[in-house]
């Protein structure tokens, strides 16, 4: 499981290495057979573009059915979300958006400090041997299926927290939020560590040479130098928290009104989609269409965060090169 985190969370890292000179790449393939093989391989690489377009088309097509019934004003203006009710239907997406942001915020308030401290410890303090053992161990956390974390949140963490907070409900935002945060720690720590690792040693030596001790060097020199990379890691982590599904679907409950209380039932966009998809809704019904409208919002939110993260990490690379 050790490398799974690295391959699944580091889309931005691919293509980072400088491209070597390969004169033969400028030539065309020789025979007809060679040419056919090249075209076949190229066709396979186009699948990624087709899939990207496919996602956008499916979401837009199905959501357009939803928006034919519901105005954008109601979708973004109402604060109740009851599309599957037979009467008293409301189509305000805010309860789901707030639920999503609440669990994501709780997750980040766990993942950010732990992930960043772990990254600093691993890159600046740990002996090489300790580092070699701890890094894969941490990445095990990212390899555990999310359904297992959901089970853990519901059956272990919630009862445990209820010992401290008696008013905590059996379904709540707090417990899945914390568990989600723990799951994201390796992602934050390994990406932040890469950013810290990329800070040139000359900068460290300069700080030490000017008489700074280790702690000020870390916080005033190294972390600020690596900041855009760390910010990229954080943004990617937020995107992951927003899109996480099974933990919240199992442990957060359901809710159709606006609520800011992390102790009570909370429904995220992802949990709503899963709950509705489990039932057997006929194609074209408003309930079926509503999951695509919610999915579209989710897709736009995560895409924005991923693009921001991509930009930030490119900025870091550009600066480290100079």
């Amino acid at each position, binding site marked *: 499981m*050790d490398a799974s985190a690295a391959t699944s969370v580091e889309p*931005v890292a691919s293509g980072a290495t400088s491209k070597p000179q390969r004169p033969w790449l400028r030539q065309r393939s020789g025979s007809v057979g060679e040419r056919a093989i090249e075209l076949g391989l*190229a066709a396979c690489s186009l699948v990624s573009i087709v899939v990207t377009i496919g*996602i956008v088309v499916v*979401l837009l097509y199905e959501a357009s059915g939803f928006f034919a019934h519901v105005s954008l004003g109601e979708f973004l203006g109402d604060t109740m979300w009851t599309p599957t009710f037979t009467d008293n239907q409301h189509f305000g997406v805010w309860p789901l958006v707030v639920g999503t942001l609440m669990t994501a915020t709780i997750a980040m308030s766990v993942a950010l400090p732990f992930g960043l401290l772990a990254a600093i410890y691993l890159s600046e303090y740990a002996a090489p041997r300790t580092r070699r053992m701890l890094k894969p161990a941490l990445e095990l956390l990212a390899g555990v*299926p999310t359904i297992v974390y959901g089970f853990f949140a519901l*059956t272990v963490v919630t009862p445990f927290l209820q010992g401290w907070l008696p008013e905590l409900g059996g379904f709540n935002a707090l417990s899945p939020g914390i568990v989600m945060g723990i799951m994201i720690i390796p992602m934050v720590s390994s990406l932040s560590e890469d950013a810290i690792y990329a800070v040139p040693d000359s900068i460290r030596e300069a700080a030490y040479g000017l008489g700074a001790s280790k702690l000020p060097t870390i916080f005033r020199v190294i972390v600020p130098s690596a900041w855009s990379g760390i910010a990229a890691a954080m943004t990617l982590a937020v995107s992951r928290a927003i899109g996480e599904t099974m933990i919240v679907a199992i442990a957060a409950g359901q809710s159709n009104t606006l609520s800011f209380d992390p102790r009570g039932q909370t429904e995220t966009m992802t949990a709503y989609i899963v709950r509705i998809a489990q039932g057997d809704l006929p194609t074209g019904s408003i309930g079926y269409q509503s999951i695509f409208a919610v999915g579209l919002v989710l*897709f736009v939110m995560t895409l924005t965060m991923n693009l921001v993260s991509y930009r930030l990490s490119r900025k870091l690379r550009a600066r480290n090169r100079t």
Partner: protein
Amino acid sequence: MSAKLPSSLLRRRDGVVAEIAFVWLARFAVFAPLIVLGWLLGGLAIDGLGRIDWAFITELPSRKAERAGIWPALMGSLWLITLTAAIALPVGVAAAIYLEEYGRQSRIAGVVEVAIANLAGVPSIIYGMLGLGLFVRFAGLGKSVIAGALTLAILVLPIIIMSTREALRTVRDSLREAALGLGATRWQMVRQVIVPMALPGILTGAILAVSRAIGETAPLVLAGAVAYISFAPDGIDAPYTALPMQIYDWTSRPQKAFLVNAAAAIVVLTVVLLLLNSVAIWLRNRYQKRAY
């Protein structure tokens, strides 16, 4: 990082209380998540191990928790990952070969690169919605194993492409030059030199992709997995369930006995995952020793 610094700088600890406190805090940040992981796995083993026996593996699900088993889910998962690997591996490896060995400087490669980076960050449930809209409904595959496998194949495609590219990059250019210099065509070079050299890396990536696919739940909920089913799939168009779906179903029930079943099924899932990952690590260690 620190390895690059002279040891006099490494040992530079000014003995300030703040720094000692900070180091302990940072140590805590590393070990606390690991302790939680131990707590999670230990708890599952305590809850679940006692429930696992041969009947649990070979029985069908049941309304009575004590008699329920995971046979259809286990078989469903096997069908799913076999089909997923059969679909995603050829396409992913071919795409990576194109991007690394042919199209590096073409404009399409740049667009593909952005698309892959983007797809790797798309939440898995969105893939489920694509599967529902495209395979289950539009293509008319219905709630079948093949619809689920196609969805998972698309989900793991970016992982396979990225890890294969990584593996291809480890093969030195001198080998490419040597092959071409001996008169090999480009495809002969790729097929007889580059791919065999990169094979361990490609296989490791493939196993990681499969272990990602086997643990996914959310996309399957959308792409047609059924929560309750009393037979194992007998073809690619058969209805199916999967281990994570079975775990989800049992976890959502209020009775304690079903939670025990869920814990036991998680133990089975974890064992399968550990086996897959040990094979991946073994492969990597075995072939990494070979110098090239």
